[in-house]
């Protein structure tokens, strides 16, 4: 038969484009940090790290779910609305507006479990529209993008819910070994998702579906089930992020929780190097992408760039980051 000893790799030479594709965003992040060290006052402090990490948490948590969705070739516009739903529901439960629960811990636990689960169920609904009716993901999730926030607003009649419940707010304000709890949550989710995507059958199936759905189906992958799960996971992530946001603010405003989150999360995923067309994904990339966007925001604010100009700069940086990777990919 044919001789397979051909195409011996002529040593691993350094390929600058491959390097860019792999580390482009990381380089951008490092450059930003250097810039700040040189020009931004009071940058090299623990508190700066703190501020940036706690601010980026919710985006990262949502973007992890989004990465999985995008890996299957889909997209989820509903995440912001799902954040609003879980953010609206939780206080209603732990403040005893639905059924009074005497024990605070029980009430808080019930609030967290139920509201995250509800967001997950809505995610499942997205997945159902997409797999059962073959509705395009953008449109399918547009339904809850519009209606989801409305549901949260109807639930609360639009009213702000304010509260002081330290047991609940622990997830937004607490610290363990000096590290903010939400940062720990974020790290756990990132690690779990990265591991899952790389090492498990489910992860591989997600990528296969994004790469060639028909082939995946014919290889026995339960495409519909995987999609359902992926959108449900995205919903769960959004639900958790919604809780973190309201915990930090001691208040829940159905009108605003998660507003615009879908675009932030998608931008983080793209800047992180995941292709929006599916079939490829990197969770760590998403983390770096989100941090880059966060640091851009911090840099612009800290240096007093006016909002309008900041929008233009942010646009340019997103393009630059994505373009650098694209260059790498095109030449690799």
């Amino acid at each position, binding site marked *: 038969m044919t001789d397979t000893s051909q195409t011996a790799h002529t040593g691993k030479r350094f390929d600058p484009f491959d390097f860019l594709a792999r580390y482009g965003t990381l380089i951008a992040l490092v450059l930003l940090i250097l810039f700040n060290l040189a020009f931004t*006052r*009071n940058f090299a402090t623990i508190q700066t790290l703190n*501020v940036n990490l706690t601010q980026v948490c919710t985006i990262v948590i949502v973007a992890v779910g989004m990465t999985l969705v995008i890996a299957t070739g889909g997209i989820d516009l509903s995440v912001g609305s799902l954040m609003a739903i879980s953010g609206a529901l939780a206080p209603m439960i732990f403040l005893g507006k639905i059924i009074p629960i005497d024990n605070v811990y029980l009430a808080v636990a019930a609030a967290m479990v139920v509201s995250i689960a509800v967001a997950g169920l809505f995610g499942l609904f997205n997945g159902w529209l997409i797999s059962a009716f073959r509705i395009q993901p953008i449109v399918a999730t547009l339904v809850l993008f519009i209606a989801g926030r409305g549901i949260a*607003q109807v639930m609360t009649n639009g*009213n702000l819910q304010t509260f002081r419940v330290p047991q609940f707010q622990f997830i937004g304000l607490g610290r363990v070994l000096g590290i903010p709890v939400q940062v720990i949550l974020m790290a756990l989710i990132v690690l779990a998702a990265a591991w899952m995507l790389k090492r498990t059958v489910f992860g591989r199936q997600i990528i296969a579906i994004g790469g060639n759905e028909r082939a995946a189906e014919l290889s026995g992958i339960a495409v519909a089930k995987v999609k359902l799960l992926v959108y449900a996971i995205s919903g769960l992530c959004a639900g958790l992020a919604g809780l973190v946001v309201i915990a930090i*603010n*001691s208040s829940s405003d159905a009108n605003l929780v998660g507003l615009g989150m879908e675009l932030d999360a998608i931008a983080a995923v793209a800047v992180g190097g995941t292709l929006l067309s599916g079939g490829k994904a990197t969770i760590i990339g998403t983390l770096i992408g989100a941090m880059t966007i966060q640091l851009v925001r911090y840099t612009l*604010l800290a240096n007093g760039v006016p*909002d309008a100009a900041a929008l233009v700069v942010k646009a340019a940086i997103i393009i630059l980051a994505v373009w650098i990777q694209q260059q790498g990919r095109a030449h690799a």
Partner: protein
Amino acid sequence: ASPPLKKKDTYKVGFAQTESNNPWRLAQTASMQEEAKKRGWQLVYTDAASSAAKQVADVNSMIAQGVDLIFLAPREEKPLIPAIKAAKNAGIPVILLDRSVDPSLAKAGDDYVTFIGSNFIEEGQRIGEWLVANGKGKTKIIELEGTTGSSPANDRKKGFDDVIAKHSDFKIVASQTGDFARDKGRQVAETLLQAHPDANVIYAHNDEMALGAISAIEAAGKVPGKDILVLSIDGGKEAVQAVVDGKIAAVVECNPRFGPKAYDTAVAYAAGEKIAPNIINPDQFYDSSNAAKLLSSAY
């Protein structure tokens, strides 16, 4: 002159709200709806979802439905002019609430009946003057602006900044938008406090951002009211409570409870009374001297 309103027992009126994305707006809507119910009037309510263009379309649909009078909370000064003119052409009187329109393009008493509301520039001024008088060495200011491009943001900035500009010992070290929202206000405040560790005043264009700023100050390990003075506008109950607690130093009221006065004005107009072109709400000013006493009357 603006179109007349027939004298009737009950009316079908429209209320064109500009948006419903913050507690202030919700309170305003609720007040309008409650009052309509109380009087047994039919209310056609629309929500422009932050779009001036949609608000014009909303007003047009009220005209099409043949309402007797329109209460309009114009999102912006200029783009709502066509709505006011359309109503006038259709013979429907308009009463402006809370925000006004460009006086060079439409006149009270002629294109619309009157404007009822606060003066955003003045609100900024009042807070600025309080700071100048009571700052006690707190002079480095972070300003949290409202939604970029919205008239309360522009005006509250103008009123405040003009006062500060006249006092060279005060300085605005940073001014960025917090979108009138608590979460955004908090994040922006966190960042600005990091970049300007010497700042000791935060002026927020509304309560929500002020409350967000308080979280940010606390997260940075500082004490609101002591290390950093927080100033705000709107004067909702939560903010006035914060004044009582010493976390907010001063807040100008901007009362959203327009219902009673709005409907009274309509009735007076139907009765042929002369209506002043500008009806400015008598807004409270809360600081440590009166907050506890007035807390129960805050909206």
